[in-house]
Structures are given as C-alpha cells and as structure tokens.
C-alpha cells in the first residue's frame, strides 16, 4: 500500500466530511511542538496496516500431553512488508505456565514460536522507535490451536490460522518519522499540507525484515477492503432509500393530521 493513493481509492475522498480524521486531508501547517525540538504535524495522521494472529500445527504422532501443538504468534505488516521501520521491539506476554513468560523480540519478523497444549490470551506490546511514538501499544490475541470444526480431523500439514487485520494510527507524527518512512511500503502515508516538503529518506539502512518469503506465508490470509466497502455501500444505499421513503410518508401524514385536527378534535 503506497502512500496517498490509498485515500483516493473510491472517489469519496473529496466528500470525506465524516471520517474520523477528515481534517488530516485539509491540514494546516503544523505548529512546532516545544518538547524535544521535534516538529510535529498537527492534523496529520499516519497509519500502519498490520495483521496479527497465530498459526498452530498439530504435532500428530509426536504430540504429548503437554506439547500437542507447535504454534507461532506474530505481528506482520498487512502486505508482508517490514515493520521494523516503525516497531522497535515486540513483547509477547505468555501464560504464566511458560518459562520466562515475557518474551521480547527485538527485530522483524516479530513473532514467537512455542509448543504447548492450551489456548490462552497473549498480550502483545509493541514498542516503537523514539521518533515514532514514546508510548507502547497493546494488542490482545486469543491463541487458537484447535479448529472451529471440532469434529473434523486434525492435520499435521495444515495449520489452524487465526489472523486479525488492524491499523496502527499515529497522530501528529514528527517530521523525522515522516521523512524516514516516506515511500516505505509498510506505511500508509498521509497527504501532507500544501507546500510541505520532506528531506529524502535514507535508503541505506534497510534490513530485510519483511515476511514475503516467510515459511508461514503460504497460510497467511488475505485482507481486502474492497469486499467490505462494497457490502457497506450497498447497505447504506438501502438504508438511505428507506429513510427517504419514511420521510415522505411522515410529511404526508403531517399534512393529513393538520387537516384532521380542527374537525375531529374532541
């Protein structure tokens, strides 16, 4: 997903009165933030689409009572791009029955593999680079090992995969952050205020942290907003038509009630 084209996808861009950060599109020049000499752009937001979840393989014959599945919990870029441009490290908090339940992953891919038998909630805390955001962000994922269809056979070849799509939104990003990530495919770049220019990014420090060739990538799910948008648009149309109808009816009845009032009033 490359920068500003994402917001121009559907032509409804122009009438984006209702979006939560509509103001970001008609942003004014940001006022410099006093702290740390970082210039931040007000009314601008930058988002990073991510997918997080787990893949779990049943161990089949090699399964024991306490280790029936081998699973991997992860956070990846939605298009399998490298998240380490934004994320400094990820901390996975496992169930207390695991040794060292706090697992820290310092580089992409941000994932953790373990073996076990139980499903539990994993708290994932993402820490960002200092020019991105000082505060960490928490995600929660309920580990899933067993397939939905309980009666179905469990296979050692095909994992149980549960993924969720979400977007991390950074408000009032700093200039340095914006400069660093412009043109990076993992990030949805905002439209900048008119006339605003950024220094070119530093191409040299690019480590390979994307998950395009990840061993699990064949199981990754695809998330396309197109279907959902279509669904929503159709629904809205229906509702709007119905609203119009009701409005007509109401005004009709209003008229009639006006006529009725004088004669039949008790």
């Amino acid at each position: 997903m490359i920068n500003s084209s994402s917001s121009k996808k559907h032509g409804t861009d122009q009438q984006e009165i209702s979006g939560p950060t509509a103001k970001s599109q008609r942003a004014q020049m940001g006022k410099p933030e006093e702290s740390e000499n970082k210039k931040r752009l007000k009314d601008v937001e930058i988002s990073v689409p991510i997918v997080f979840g787990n893949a779990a393989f049943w161990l089949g014959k090699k399964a024991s009572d306490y280790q029936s599945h081998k699973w991997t919990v992860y956070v990846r870029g939605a298009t399998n791009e490298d998240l380490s441009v934004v994320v400094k490290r990820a901390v996975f908090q496992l169930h207390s029955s695991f040794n060292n339940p706090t697992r820290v992953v310092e580089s992409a891919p941000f994932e953790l593999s373990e073996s076990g038998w139980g499903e539990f909630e994993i708290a994932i805390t993402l820490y960002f680079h200092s020019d991105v955001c000082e505060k960490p962000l928490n995600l929660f994922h309920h580990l899933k090992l067993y397939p939905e269809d309980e009666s179905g056979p469990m296979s050692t070849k095909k994992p149980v995969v549960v993924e969720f799509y979400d977007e991390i939104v950074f408000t009032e990003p700093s200039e340095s952050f914006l400069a660093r990530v412009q043109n990076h495919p993992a990030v949805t770049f905002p439209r900048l205020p008119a006339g605003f220019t950024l220094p070119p990014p530093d191409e040299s420090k690019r480590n390979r942290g994307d998950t395009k060739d990840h061993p699990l990538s064949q199981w990754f799910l695809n998330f396309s907003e197109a279907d959902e948008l279509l669904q929503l648009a159709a629904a809205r149309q229906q509702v709007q038509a119905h609203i119009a109808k009701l409005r007509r009816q109401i005004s009709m009845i209003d008229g009639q009630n006006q006529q009725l009032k004088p004669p039949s009033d008790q």
Partner: protein
Amino acid sequence: MDAKDILGLPKTPLPITQEKKSRPQKDSQRKPDGISREVYALTGGLAPLMPSIDVSQLKRRPPSDEKITWQWLPFTSSARKDDLQLYHWARVVNGVPPTGDYSFAKYNKSVDVIRYTDEEYEKYLTDPTWTKEETDQLFDFCERFDLRFIIIADRFPTSRTVEELKDRYYSVSRAILIARAPSPGEVAGHPLVKEPYNVSQETERKRALSMVLSQTKHQERKDAEVIAEAKRIAESRMAAQGVEEPDLPVTSDIGPENAEKAIGHGDAISPSNVHVPSAAVAPSTSILADNTSTLASLRMLRVYLRTYALEQMVQAASSSAGLRTIKRVEQTLQDLGVNLKPKVPTKAVCAEHLELRKEILTLLNLQKQLQYKEAEGSSFRDGSYGDMPGTPKRSLRAADQDRTFVPDTISFGGERVGKREQKRKGPGRVSETPSSPAHKRPRKLKASDL
C-alpha cells in the same frame, strides 16, 4: 414413655431380668456397637446406608504398648524472662515426662525495634520538633507495645497524633539503617528504606476515609447527584468548546475525573469545584460534541488501533440511544449482511461503517416518528366511534405493529399501497388516503422500491 419415643427405643416395658436375656437379640436393633446410645439416637435411630464412621475404629483400637498416664507436673517456658514455675497436666509415656520447651513458647514473637546509641542520635537523628527524651520514650513504647501505635499514642505523655509518632519512628529507623549499612545498595531493598512513611499522605488518607465513613445516606445521594451534574456540565462545556474551536486540546476530559476525586476526598471540597457554565448547549449538538470530543481524546493518545478508534466513535454516536436501540441497530446491520466489527478496518471502511450506523439510527428514529404520527392521526379520528366502526381496531393494529425494517436481502414482499386503499373504504370516512399508511403491514421493500 415420651423419652423412649424420642430416643426411638422400643416401648416394651420389660422387667430387668427379661431385658437382660432379650438384650442380645435387640442389641442389633437398638444400637450399633461403638457409638453411645445418645449419639446413635441423634441420627434418628436409623443406621445410615454407608457408615460415615468406620465403626471398627471406634473404641476398638488395639491397646498400645505404651503405658500412658497423666501427671500434674511443673514446667517453665522460655518465653518468660523470670524463672516462674507453673504446673499443668502432662501426658507421661512409660514414666517419661515430655521433654522440650513449653509448646507455646514459639509463639512469643516480637518486633525488632532498632535501638540507637546516644552518639548515633547526636549524629543523625536530631529533629527540631522532637526532644531526645521524647524519642527515647517513643522507642521504649514501641518495643513494649510491639508497634501498636494506637496504644502508644494513647499512653504517650505529650499529645502527639498517631501519624506524628509513626513518622518519627519510621524516619529514625530509616536513618539508622542507612547510617549503619556499609553501603547504600545493601539496604536499598529493605522495606523501611524503599518506602518511606509519608505523613501528609497518611493524614489526608485517614481524613478522607473518615469522611467517607461518616457520610450519611443523604450525603451519599447528594454526592451521586453532584458527580452526575459535573459530568453533564463537563460534557456540555466540551461541546461548547468543541463546536467553537475544534483545535483546542480538550482538557475537560480531566474535569469529571477531578470532580470525582474531589468528591471522594470529602464533600466539603466538591461544591466549590463544580461551576455551572453559562452556555447551555442544545441536545441536538450533543452527538456532534461527542464526536469531536472522541476525536480529540484519540488525538491525545498519539497512537491507537483503528478498531479501538471505531469502537469509541460508535459508542459516542450511540450515547444518546438506549440499549434496546443499540441492539436494533446491530440486528439491522446483521440483516443487511454487514459485519458488526469490520473484518478489514481500514480508514475508509471504518468511516463507511460509522456512517452506516448513524444512518440506521436515523432510520429507526424516523420509524418511531412515523408510528407516533400515525397514532396521533388515528387518535384524531377516534373522535366518533359510531361513524367509523372499523377504525379503532385497525388503527390500534397499525400502531402496535412493530415496523421493523426488513431489508430486501431477506424478503421481497410487495407493498400494495394502491390496492389496499381501495379495499379499506369505510363508511363516513373523512378521506381515504390517511388510512393507507396506517394500515400497512411490516414494511418489506420491493425491488422496485429501490
């Protein structure tokens, strides 16, 4: 006789000799061995199906090899500082009295009150508000009363509050610990060093507690009212600010929290914290205000998840609606085939989703409005029952029908407006058209309607 009844014994008045003979026979009936008669009778005279007590265990223990007697013997306790000798019954086994310390001596624990030397006092512990004698006396009391400060405060010759005594004791002990420690690192873990006693905080806390405890019911109610009022005022204030200057950072989020804290501390403070703003904001702007305030609070977060943002916006939008309305919105969404929580929450999708929800809310409101109007209309017509025999029933039916919006994905029933009109012509009808909207069945959208 009654006693025998109660005990469940047979009533036969056998003479004693006969009793003796017949006893072996009746024994099994009367009681099991091993339990006394009274105890057995407690169970109602019936044997339980499963004996809860293993009968063979009772009173049938094999006689132990040891000879046990009980003797009145003297003893001393290590817990005592004097050598007082007291006497008690002791279980003597084979002529050997029990050895070891008095069994309860181990419970004689006391607190390790640190005692300072005079030089240490001169060097580290002088304090303008405390004399050495007082401090000495304090420490004596602490040792004597095991740090029971309430008692110490009670007995202290000069009047000092519990907090002052605690403060002096803890700061002295802490200073001594630090002074005596070879290096600061070693004592850093000691609880006295890690968490110093905070007098002002403690005083405040106790005062707040006592205020809360002594609140009458009347006060409680008043407090609840004030909190609600504060919240409303803060919100309307936010709305006023939000509507006028959307770029101002919203600090009034903190407002209601502050008011609540203030109230928690004591109702004396709260009335002064809550000002009534002069600007009253009309309810129709409240939804806009909610939106703006949510936006502002999201912005303050600096980083958040899109799904979280959507949740907040949805909540803000439905804040004016009751639970039932919210459920109806969700039902409608499901009927329309839309996920309650978008599976791919991009910015565009979230925006559309939010708009859809708002439109559904509008729709539901309009439906309600329509119902009211029709009810109104039919109540006007209800003036003369005689003229229009059919109307009351029909208008009631119309008003009662829950006009649920059933989208065309589910059904394609046709709405034959025109035809129904003709059928429903009744005598003495003022006009025909008003009746038709009143008598519609639950609406089903025709494909041609769209």
